[in-house]
């Protein structure tokens, strides 16, 4: 599905993420962990194309997307939920969803599906998204990403700022989505959830992969260890 080879990227001339190799297989959930500032967000931004890759390649299903602009990567099947509950503040919640449903065959149905998944959003459709609470915005962001019917969902700390019972729902939803044929690249601080949902993990430290592998037995210790140093 997604293949990163020797990916280096950063801001200005300063690399923040160095030489990362990572594979997300079809129907697989891969969790990326690491401290604040380790470069997780930077890595994801490079994958969706918001930051240029300094060196290395990004491939989706064998197609080289390293130089493809972001919106075309989305058309190729990526979807991205950025960190920080971002939404189009000046559009209503409903318009946030319609924006991505526009031009899709079953746009209305797709929106409805997501409203079923996040029922809290239904009554808020006519409220300006900029006025929603943090948690409401996060749900809106995930719904927006899913409407594009992605094959690879990229999530940056999707449960940050979400009330516990909804966290549980989101987690369930991700596991569910993965089962139904979606690949997921997940940045997550909740270790327990990350390891449970993901088949593979990678730990970033100072922009480099410090540890990676399958999430089976002993993974928790390896992750803890990689993070602690």
């Amino acid at each position, binding site marked *: 599905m997604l293949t990163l080879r020797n990916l280096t990227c950063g801001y200005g001339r300063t690399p923040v993420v160095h030489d990362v190799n990572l594979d997300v297989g079809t129907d697989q959930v891969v969790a990326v962990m*690491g*401290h*604040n*500032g380790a470069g997780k967000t930077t890595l994801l931004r490079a994958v969706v194309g918001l930051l240029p890759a300094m060196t290395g390649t990004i491939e989706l299903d064998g197609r080289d997307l390293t130089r493809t602009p972001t919106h075309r990567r989305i058309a190729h099947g990526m979807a991205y939920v950025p*960190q*920080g509950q971002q939404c189009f503040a000046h559009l209503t919640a409903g318009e946030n969803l319609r924006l991505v449903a526009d031009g899709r065959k079953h746009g209305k149905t797709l929106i409805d599906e997501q409203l079923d998944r996040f029922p*809290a959003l239904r009554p808020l459709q006519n409220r300006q998204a900029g*006025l*929603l*609470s*943090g*948690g*409401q915005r*996060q*749900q809106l962001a995930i719904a927006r990403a899913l409407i594009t019917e992605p094959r690879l969902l990229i999530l940056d*700390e999707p449960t*940050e*700022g*979400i*009330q*516990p*019972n*909804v*966290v*549980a729902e989101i*987690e369930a939803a991700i596991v569910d989505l993965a089962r139904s044929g979606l690949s997921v690249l997940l940045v997550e*601080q*909740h*270790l*327990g*959830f990350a390891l*449970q949902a993901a088949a593979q993990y990678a730990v970033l430290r100072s922009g480099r992969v410090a540890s990676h592998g399958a999430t089976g037995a002993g993974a928790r210790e390896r992750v803890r260890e990689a*993070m*602690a140093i």
Partner: protein
Amino acid sequence: MNTIALTCTDITVDFDGFKAVNGVDLELARGEVHFLIGPNGAGKTTLVDAITGLTPYTGSVTKDTPGTGAVELRGKKVHHIARTGIGRTFQTATVFDNLTVAQNLDIAAGAHRTPWTLLRRRRHLPETVTATMDRIGLTGHADTPAGILAHGQKQWLEIGMLLVGDADVLLLDEPIAGMGHDERETTGRLLHDIAADRAVAVVEHDMDFMRAFASRVTVLHAGAVLATGSVDDVSTDPRVQAVYLGTKETADAHTA
């Protein structure tokens, strides 16, 4: 000395007919880390906005300061409220990116300075600034521009800025969002440490963090107070479980 530092009485915030906060009473006592939890959209941030003068409201907020007595905050301007000793942080850390850590703290310490002092150069860092820098663990970064600090460090700097500013009521909106496990621990201890002679209110969704560090919890739901009490009181309250925590099983299933 658990004296009450801040008293909110019957706060209501009305957005064109939608009551985001609806008749909330709340007391914050010195010596306590008071957690404010509740579903997304319950009105937690709005309540903090109201107290700090960002949103108009009805009701009353009084600040009790030893020596000066109680003052009503409603109707005061943002910076006047801040000067009574109320400090807040935001869901996303805002520090002055182009200034260094020390400069950030020095500014935060200086709201009471005379114009004359302001117009001169700083000869040396004030005691409180160096002390606080120690306390938040950023002494090594004194000359680092705040813009290039790590996320967690920015949050700490923000808290530090409230401390040097002599805030004795701290309202922190999701201060550990995005922090790793160890940083959460550090932050929690820091909060307890500074709460010794201050009132600290924390808005947070991380239940582990709450269980570990809350002295007292208030649960908001749909703009109103749903429950208030100790961690145990609220986490066993079925209404809180229903609207917020989820059933016991789901809640436990994901705790690390």
